[in-house]
């Protein structure tokens, strides 16, 4: 029984990395279709890290960001969080709505729903890739949205599963669109039983 992410073997971590690559690749394709222009992604970085480390990794606790969150249930339970940096949001907004924003303040309803949609696409393509690969049935809640300090946003999966583990899986990559590179961050925090189930389904768990 896995008690902590720190106990994962290197083969298991490699498998999670692979899921991360495929998932973000699919997300780039989905974004590209939505905007009707090419979007590629740099090789994503997939890391298992501690929460405090994850907060530093995305830019410090007090920095304000937009977060889109869904809860997974079914074969895999857990939380997935997409952290929307302004650069990424602006690439989509300028293509779709012909406008850009310089802060998260005073968002219009349209800008807000565009942000939720970006997060939704990122998360659901990622989950689709993962469930397709491992033949899983995963249900997602309707995405929830918040603009606030990212330290507090990241605490949500942390508090939900913090009693069991201090680690989460962070996936980071850069989308390249019209010659511009914009960062994207996804955080996946499955409950540990689900993680074990996932790895067993993929045939890499030795338990």
């Amino acid at each position, binding site marked *: 029984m896995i008690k902590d992410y720190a106990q994962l073997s290197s083969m298991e971590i490699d498998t999670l990395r692979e899921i991360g690559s495929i998932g973000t690749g699919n997300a780039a394709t989905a974004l590209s279709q939505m905007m009707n222009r090419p979007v590629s992604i740099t090789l994503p970085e997939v890391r298992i890290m501690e929460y405090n480390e994850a907060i530093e990794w995305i830019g410090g*606790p007090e920095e304000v960001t937009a977060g889109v969150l869904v809860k997974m249930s079914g074969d895999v339970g857990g939380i997935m969080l997409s952290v929307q940096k302004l650069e990424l949001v602006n690439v989509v907004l300028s293509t779709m709505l012909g406008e850009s924003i310089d802060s998260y303040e005073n968002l219009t309803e349209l800008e807000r729903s565009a942000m939720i949609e970006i997060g939704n696409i990122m998360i659901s393509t990622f989950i689709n890739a993962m469930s397709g690969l491992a033949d899983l049935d995963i249900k997602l809640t309707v995405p929830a949205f918040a603009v606030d300090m990212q330290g507090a946003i990241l605490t949500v999966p942390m508090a939900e599963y913090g009693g069991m583990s201090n680690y989460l899986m962070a996936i980071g990559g850069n989308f390249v669109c019209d010659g511009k590179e914009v960062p994207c961050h996804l955080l996946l925090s499955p409950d540990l039983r689900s993680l074990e189930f996932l790895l067993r389904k993929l045939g890499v768990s030795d338990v």
Partner: protein
Amino acid sequence: MKTLQGEGVLITYALGSCIGLCFHDPRLRLGALLHIMLPLNMETGRTHPLKYADTGIKETLKALEAKGASRARMTVKIAGGAKMFEVSGGGGLGNIGQRNIESVHAILKRENLHLIGEHTGGTVARTLLFDVVSGQACIRSYGQKDIIF
């Protein structure tokens, strides 16, 4: 948990559903700032006592009393316990903040601690600053005026 005596300001960043507790002994100019994440410690090994309201408050009191603080003089101010996301159909998700508030209240009462200031609940994250000399606390939030209490 951080303690400080003499002068200075303690700070904890971006409290969402977490709660920040400022303990103050005015005579000793001694303060402690505790940041808890969950209401109750149910860990088997209890390797992270400061993460939980119950064991965190106990540890903090132990540290302060070791420095000569008196529980009768001590005052407490708390902030945090917000609900960051409204997830429809998410079950218990997002209620952690409320559970933290209730747990902290119950434990402070049980430990006979004097709660003199509180800014909890809501949907906005808070950064909490605490001056160990005056005992004054300040909350910084995104897009809002600072609150001093």
